[in-house]
């Protein structure tokens, strides 16, 4: 029995299959990058896995799931709503508690958004918003991290830092990525998808960027 697995999963939207008879096994400690064209089924696969392992996992969905009217601090705090009593959550909503600030500040500092910590989300750029969603996932302290293109809008020299933050804070990581070199650099295993099927599943060792070209050919 693997740590996580899907067996023969098929997902259809309006009659078209987005995942066809898909099986995957994931062991604890693996860092998996899902690669493939848009529409290949990466997001669907991530959502399926997240639904199944929700209790132990944090998620950075494609639309980030941030509350636009709340500050960066509060959005990160959402990651631990389940661990605190409701009355405390509400007090912290009205007046941020010192203890929470002290825990959250190092995380946002690491991701380079410390100076925005008390600004509402709508004031932030796309890349900054992605980093808030990552910070929320890190603050959640889950064993597993699922991310749907979590660094796609972060600028190039910062995206490596964010990737390292994700990997260092989670035991098992499953990400969809369109940046092939970033995927190769940070993962231990590459899963290639095309038209809802797995056409590649190999350890990252020895794979070169041009080996992935097939995935992007029509």
């Amino acid at each position, binding site marked *: 029995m693997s740590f996580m697995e899907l067996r023969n999963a098929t997902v259809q939207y309006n009659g078209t299959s987005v995942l066809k008879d898909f099986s995957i096994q994931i062991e604890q400690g693996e860092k998996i990058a899902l690669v493939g064209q848009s529409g290949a089924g990466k997001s669907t696969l991530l959502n399926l896995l997240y639904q199944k392992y929700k209790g132990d996992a944090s998620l950075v969905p494609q639309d980030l799931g941030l509350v636009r009217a709340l500050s960066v601090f509060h959005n990160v705090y959402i990651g631990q*709503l389940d661990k605190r009593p409701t009355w405390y959550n509400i007090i912290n909503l009205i007046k941020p508690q010192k203890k929470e600030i002290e825990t959250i500040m190092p995380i946002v500092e690491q991701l380079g958004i410390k100076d925005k910590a008390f600004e509402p989300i709508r004031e932030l750029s796309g890349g900054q918003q992605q980093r808030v969603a990552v910070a929320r996932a890190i603050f959640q302290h889950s064993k597993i991290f699922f991310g749907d293109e979590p660094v796609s809008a972060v600028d190039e020299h910062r995206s490596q830092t964010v990737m390292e933050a994700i990997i260092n804070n989670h035991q098992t990581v499953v990400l969809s990525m369109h940046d092939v070199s970033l995927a190769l650099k940070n993962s231990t295993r590459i899963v290639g998808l095309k038209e809802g099927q797995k056409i590649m599943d190999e350890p990252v060792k020895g794979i070169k960027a041009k080996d992935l070209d097939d995935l992007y050919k029509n």
Partner: protein
Amino acid sequence: MTTSTKIRAFKIGLGQRPLLRSSIIFLLIAIVLGAFGDFEVTTLDPWIEIKRMVFGAITPDFTATEDLWSSLVNTVAFAILGVVLGNILGFPLALAFKFRSIRVFCAFIRSVHELFWALIFLQVFGLAPLTGILAIAIPYSGIFAKVYSEILDESDPSPLQAVPNGTSAASTFMFVRMPDAWAHFKTYALYRLECGLRSSAILGFIGLPTIGFHLESAFSQGKYSEVAALLIIFYVVIATIRKWIYAKLIPLYILLAIALIPWAGELTTGNLIRFFSHDVLPYPLRITESYNMETFALLTSWLTTIWNEQAIPGLINTIILTQVALVGSAVLTLMLFPLVSSKFFGVTGRTGGHIFLVILRSTPEYVLALIFLLLWGPSMLPAVVALALHNGAIIGHLMGHYTEDMNLRPDKPRGLNLYFYDILPRLYPQFLAFLFYRWEVIMRETAILGILGIATLGFYIDSAFADLRFDRALFLIIFTAGLNMCIDSLSRFIRGRLQLRTTADII
């Protein structure tokens, strides 16, 4: 032109344009109904009164009544306490709005106009502050419940997927639904406070110590300089609302309002019990000693009398007035909105337009109707003009605002071509959505214009109160509420069919 081209042209003209078709249907209904209505000028020489009013308007007399400032304070105090209590009662109802029973309950309490609530509470509490506060708070809580629940439904659901498993429902609500909705709540509550000020002013007409009380006596004595003074300070209060209302000051305002309101009158439970267990019972049931066939026959005749002599004539007049006023509001909206739109006028022109519209929408429709009534004598005409001006100004203001977000191409046409080819087609769905949303409000207002003597349902309700026939009054109030709820559902049905959407927080 070939026949098939003609048919295609017809289809583009009408056949395939449901919005245009519905508009024409409503226009035709209004014309047909209007033919049965009573629209005539009965005063001999309206010009004399107009001259006196205009003279009054340009010579406002702020010293005419020493109660000017205290009545203003009372108006604001009643409005604040009423709206705050409406929020306190309405918010929990909004959270429970998914239950059908709650929705029906809210639809009922908001379908009875503030003035009718006030007339009811007047019998129970007398001319006490509680009468005014509850008269505003109760219908407003029904409105808040509906609008707040719509706002909550519209808040972005995407963060829900990122909330950790096992988070309590209350925490999820506070962190995910509330933050998005909060800004909309504030905007809407502020808009409602403006409505509350108008409601509060009008409550003076039935005797509460707000500015309506002094307006009533000034109007009836033809002291138009005093009327002008009262209205001007009222406009200033409404126009500057954003300058004096701050979230942090609200607790202070509540305390001040409680301290300053004249807490006259006394609350006796005896009154309360007598009114609800005796006075409002149909007369035959009240006098009977035993329930038998005779009681039943008397009850039937009681019901038949009200039905034939009051409910049905009132219903017909209410519907005529509503439909004509609805179309009138539509026409005025289309004429007024360019006045406040940057697409048609520069800053200077728009300022004039804004002042004009603020005056029209800040003047309670009841006061507008009273003015036209004095000019033209009793008929449906003053009521229709008053409703059309008031509602046309409200929707026109929103429409003008809506044109701000339109991006027009650089080589856009000008004048009427711009209006008909570029602006109106884009605005039309929104315009109809607001208008249909307002339909129920217009009907509620036509009913209360009855108090001014126009024979709508409100006229019969007011007469019943005046004759101390509370059984009739209550029956007719419930009947009117039922009619309002029908219009509300019909409006929702039509908006659904035409796929019209309104964002809840502006109207």
